[in-house]
């Protein structure tokens, strides 16, 4: 199913219902000669986990950055939790959060100091209790008074996740949340995200190269290629459509341009 095939069935920005967490409508981003994002539309219901898949340069990070308001679209509209971005970002930034490999927590500050600062920025009530709760949930207690720069990659990821959850966001944007983690820690992070979504009815948009992660976590997958949406459905439906047993095989079909052949074989 192509972007155009699905466009008519997708809710647009006009759909301001409380059930929509993110609505992206004909979004375009052009950098000089490059169309990084090329007329994409989708909407995410509240409480869902959606995976944004695609190879390097597919437009995932730019799409997430436009949803966050860090990048201005060339054209098109983004609505987050019922508010237009970036114009009304003040109304929603306190209700969302993110984690990305493109940013770090300050290295010289301890974990507790970092969480205290971000807790204050997000006006978290009973901040000490919230930090203690996160330290317990994410197993930070042993190193909470250690400088962030002295932590292992797995510990830093857990701290970044704690920062992303400090304000109990309704919407969580995650760019490669388990990149560079060992399988055990990555699995542990995935389990925590699942619990967080379940307990808080939170919406999660997740960009990842890890297909197993996406299969396990996501209710829905949006596959991007060269700035466009190549496919958009549940993981099971997409695998069935491509006649593949795993999303990784689907990903390779899309990345290597075997899309039509695979779909026809499935038919």
């Amino acid at each position, binding site marked *: 199913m192509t972007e155009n095939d699905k466009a008519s069935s997708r809710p647009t920005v006009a759909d301001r219902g409380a059930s929509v967490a993110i609505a992206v409508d004909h979004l375009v*981003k052009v950098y000089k000669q490059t169309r990084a994002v090329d007329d994409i539309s989708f909407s995410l219901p509240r409480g869902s986990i959606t995976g944004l898949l695609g190879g390097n340069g597919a437009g995932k990070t730019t799409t997430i950055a436009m949803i*966050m*308001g860090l990048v201005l679209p060339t054209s098109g509209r983004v609505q987050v939790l019922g508010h237009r971005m970036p*114009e009304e970002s003040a109304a929603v930034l306190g209700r969302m959060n993110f984690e990305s490999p*493109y940013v770090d927590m300050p290295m010289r500050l301890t974990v507790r100091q970092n969480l205290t600062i971000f807790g204050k920025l997000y006006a978290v009530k009973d901040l000490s209790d919230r930090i203690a709760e996160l330290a317990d949930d994410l197993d930070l207690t042993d190193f909470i008074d250690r400088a962030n720069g002295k932590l292992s990659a797995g510990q830093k990821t857990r701290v970044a996740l704690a920062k992303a959850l400090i304000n109990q966001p309704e919407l969580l944007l995650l760019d490669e949340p388990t990149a560079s983690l060992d399988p055990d820690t990555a699995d542990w992070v995935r389990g925590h995200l699942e619990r967080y979504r379940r307990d808080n009815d939170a919406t999660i948009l997740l960009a990842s190269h890890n297909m197993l992660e996406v299969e396990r976590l996501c209710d829905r997958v949006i596959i991007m290629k060269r700035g466009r949406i190549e496919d958009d459905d549940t993981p099971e439906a997409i695998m069935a459509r491509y006649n593949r047993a795993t999303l990784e095989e689907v990903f390779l079909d899309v990345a290597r341009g075997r899309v039509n052949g695979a779909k026809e074989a499935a038919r």
Partner: protein
Amino acid sequence: MTELSLHRGISAHRIGAMILRYWYLLLSSWPRLLELLYWPALQVITWGFIQYYIAENASFFARAGGTLIGAVILWDILFRGQLGFSISFLEEMWARNLGNLMMSPLRPIEFLLSLTVMSLIRLAIGIVPMTLLALFLFHFNVYALGLPLIAFFCNLIFTSWSVGIFVSGLVLRHGLGAESIVWTLMFAIMPLACIYYPVSVLPVWLQHVAWALPPTYVFEGMRALLSENTFRIDLMLDALAINAVLLVASFWAFLALLRSAKKHGSLLSGGE
């Protein structure tokens, strides 16, 4: 971080959070603290001895004791005030933390206000020991200038913030490749601000340019105070008016550069 809307409330707790962030950073690193003390101390000692030598050999400086060392101290207020502002900003770039801040509810005006407070804190750490050194080594008491010192200080710190806001916007837009501007821009106005010599030394056409810079009024005012014992309040008010224009212009430029950074995707790269 949203585009600025002045009609929305500014949050003291978010500004406080950012000040706390820089305070933790200062306390966590002794080289950072030492750097604040080292250069001002070195400056005042070097120029203090030069002044001693000149005072024994030149009639003007003999009359206007402290002119040179006073100029050094006031120049450092201007330069360190801007560095104190800009380095706190650069810390976010170096730490790759800007994206976290931009995505938080922190607004540009709150971010900039926290940087102005940190500029004062960093300046106090560097300048107070410098003035004490000047007092004990060279018997120059800058605090004896009295109320005019407050006027000098305010005008210099306002200029330093204007420059700090503008160069921070440039780094935001162009990444750390523009970092050198932070360290060098103030030196570009140094000859025109007439720190160590009167404006009349400049060619007439250049004097017009010099009078467009608030520090020029401060250094002229300092010389008038030390050599003629006259406080030129007219100079201070002129400087204040130009500073008001510069602060508004630099803030506008910062917002324009922030918007340009978002348009060009610079906030995602942040590097060179």
